[in-house]
């Protein structure tokens, strides 16, 4: 009887792992000693970072999607049948259609979802770009914007820690190009006492914002939005007026994690080096789904996925552990419409962003296409 690997989640993390396992264990797949099966929520694979460009008309919607079955190695049976319960004691995953899947090794990569509805008034009063519907509405709002006060409001916890800065600088360039910046004001709000969680990034961002006249409010944790009065109020007691509110909404893990009682907030307690669920030796957790206190970003998922591929392959073919995850994350940072920089860090190395350049921006644009090679397990 072959060993069954079941991957729950068809986003970047799950897809890299599935394709990587096929690459590493093609012989075992052929003999039937190993099988890889995936459960997902959609037949379309979404390039999430591309959503940032949609409100500015810099990315066509069709470019965001590919058929998940074409992204996946054809040796992986893929079912658009989301998991509704994960029983790690019984080693059984039940799906919404009522089917059950057993496994020898389970990979949970169910990701996260935005939760603007958890802040009163936010869903009605704010725009965001974290899903296609939101990005479309934000594009329309920007198309109709004739000048005024824009607030870029960052909430905790949120996906992709650099996206709030990217959208702020891109908004500045967008409004400048449209000739609207002289009658507009951008204010950036952030939950803690500096402009970014990464101190070196915050030190870089503050003079940049000062240079462009972008205002900022720190220690701003959103309490409520009043869409009628067009105000946003913080837990700290500050109220700001806006004409256009762009929010980086709070997010949460998948409902199936909560329903299966696998972790508060939908985040599964995970060993930060082994990427195994705490208390399990046959359940790997990858990407946004972990509770590891590092960035919820595609880059994190990518480096974690590579580690899980190596370890699952070694466990199944050599009965040994291969290597630990070192906390590595690499993020491009768009610093406007024509410049970019990057940060990388791991558990031992702090980030140190370099000077922005047009070349790095172009490389980010290239990566927007190369992403599909990452998902395929080639990059």
């Amino acid at each position, binding site marked *: 009887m072959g060993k069954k690997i079941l991957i729950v989640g068809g986003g970047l993390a799950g897809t890299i792992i599935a394709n990587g396992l096929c690459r590493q264990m093609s012989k075992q797949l052929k003999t039937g000693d190993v099988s890889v099966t995936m459960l997902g929520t959609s037949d379309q694979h979404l390039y999430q970072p591309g959503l940032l460009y949609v409100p500015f008309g810099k990315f066509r919607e069709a470019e965001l999607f590919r058929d998940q079955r074409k992204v996946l190695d054809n040796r992986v049976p893929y079912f658009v049948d989301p998991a509704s319960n994960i029983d790690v004691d019984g080693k059984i995953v039940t799906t919404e259609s009522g089917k059950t899947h057993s496994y020898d090794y389970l990979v949970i990569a169910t990701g996260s979802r935005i939760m603007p509805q958890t802040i009163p008034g936010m869903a009605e009063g704010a725009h965001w770009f974290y899903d296609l519907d939101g990005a479309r509405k934000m594009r329309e709002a920007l198309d109709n914007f004739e000048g005024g006060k824009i607030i870029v409001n960052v909430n905790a916890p949120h996906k992709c820690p650099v996206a709030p800065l990217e959208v702020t600088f891109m908004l500045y360039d967008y409004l400048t190009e449209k000739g609207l910046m002289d009658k507009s004001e951008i204010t950036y709000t952030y939950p803690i*006492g500096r402009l970014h*969680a*990464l101190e070196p990034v915050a030190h870089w961002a503050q003079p940049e914002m000062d240079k462009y006249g972008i205002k900022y409010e720190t*220690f701003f944790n959103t309490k409520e939005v009043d869409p009628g009065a067009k105000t946003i109020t913080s*837990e700290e007691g500050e109220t700001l007026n806006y004409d256009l509110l762009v929010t980086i909404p709070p997010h949460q893990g998948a409902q199936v994690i909560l329903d299966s009682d696998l972790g508060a907030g939908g985040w599964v307690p995970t060993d930060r080096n082994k990427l195994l669920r705490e208390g399990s030796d046959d359940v790997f957790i990858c990407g946004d789904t972990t509770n590891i*206190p*590092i960035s919820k970003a595609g880059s994190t998922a990518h480096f974690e996925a590579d580690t899980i591929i190596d370890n699952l392959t070694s466990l199944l073919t050599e009965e040994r552990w291969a290597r630990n995850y070192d906390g590595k994350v690499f993020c491009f940072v768009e610093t406007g419409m024509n410049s970019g920089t990057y940060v990388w860090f791991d*558990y031992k190395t702090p*980030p140190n962003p370099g000077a922005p350049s047009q070349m790095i921006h172009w490389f980010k644009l290239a990566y927007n296409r190369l992403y599909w090679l990452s998902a395929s397990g080639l990059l």
Partner: protein
Amino acid sequence: MSNRTQIDARGAFCPGPLMEVIATLKLIEIGDEIEVMSTDQGTVKDLPEWCAKVGHEHVETVQHDGYASLVVRKSK
């Protein structure tokens, strides 16, 4: 009896210990506590400052070899 959630944010540069505390506060009950372990010395200053501003209780800070443990009690 209050519950205590532990966050090991040692070596976690992004999103950082304070952001982790803010996120975790949304998941616990009033009176429950969070203990965050941090190698970032900025947290030792930032966290009590934020608690005072927002109205949560900073219970204690204990310095260990190479890191600090800070305890916060959810007050509202």
